[in-house]
């Protein structure tokens, strides 16, 4: 234990270097970055096309945009931020799930309440 403590001190880096890949196995490779990049480009181009070609109804376009944005966010989280189910990322994932829930309540709640208020005040 003492030895490990010394190894972790700022001065002890050279000693550490054999086992230093410490920020995780999950740092990705050239191919995983390229796959993520190609997927992201395809999804971005699709988003632009959906809007510029006016091929769907306004509501349909908005739904398609939301889907594409959601998928692209997931692609980025997986290929660029290397999120995954490994046990070492457990606390990162717990924080993330909490934040997503929090932000969802924040946005949906705000839009719901404000739309309702506007309707009742008839200020549209």
């Amino acid at each position: 234990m003492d030895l490990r403590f010394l190894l972790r001190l700022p001065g002890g880096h050279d000693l550490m270097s054999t086992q230093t890949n410490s920020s995780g196995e999950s740092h990705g490779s050239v191919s995983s970055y390229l796959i993520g990049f190609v997927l992201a480009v395809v999804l971005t181009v699709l988003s632009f096309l959906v809007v510029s070609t006016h091929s769907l109804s306004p509501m349909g376009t908005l739904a398609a945009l939301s889907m594409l944005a959601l998928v692209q966010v997931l692609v980025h989280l997986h290929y660029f931020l290397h999120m995954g189910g490994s046990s070492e990322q457990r606390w990162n994932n717990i924080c993330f799930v909490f934040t997503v829930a929090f932000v969802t309540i924040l946005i949906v709640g705000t839009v719901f309440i404000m739309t309702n208020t506007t309707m009742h005040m008839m200020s549209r």
Partner: protein
Amino acid sequence: MAHDTTVQTAGHDEHHHESPVVFGFWVYLMTDCIIFGSLFAVFAVLRNQFNGGPTPHELFEFGGLGLETALLLVSSITYGFGMIAAHKNQISQVILWLGVTFLLGLGFVGLEVREFAHMIAEGAGPDRSAFLSAFFTLVSTHGLHVSCGLIWILTLMVQLMGTTEIPERMMNKLTCLSLFWHFLDIVWICVFSYVYLAGMI
């Protein structure tokens, strides 16, 4: 303090464990996520309050938006290549990729500043309507984050110059910046989808 927790976790898991520094930074990013969430909520409420002023159709164009998006997306992957080089301890490669990322990010901020200046010159500044106030607050908060990221990239490039190996502390800094930079790209996905493209439907 930090060392204590490191020792504990290291004792827990023999092979390796994510540094508490990186985890702490992740928690910061999550709080940043809440800031952006609030700004998106504000924008969602005010997006149709034009007060007789210009609408998204008149203000936004595909060309500039596409270019900004492309710059940020490419900068994400160049930073990724920098991280791969860093894990292989190839310092000159890391500096090169960080430099490329910096230039792409600078291009993004430059385009955004030009777009804002153009809009304000046309009388579509943040004081024109509630929609424009919400728009400028949201998009410039993102732009400010990217600008901070640029300063951070420069700082790390300077710190890396002249060194021969990347100690764990430096690796943590690079990893945190990597999370920050990719996180900003994710926020930009939401911005171009819900602010720009959704306004142009």
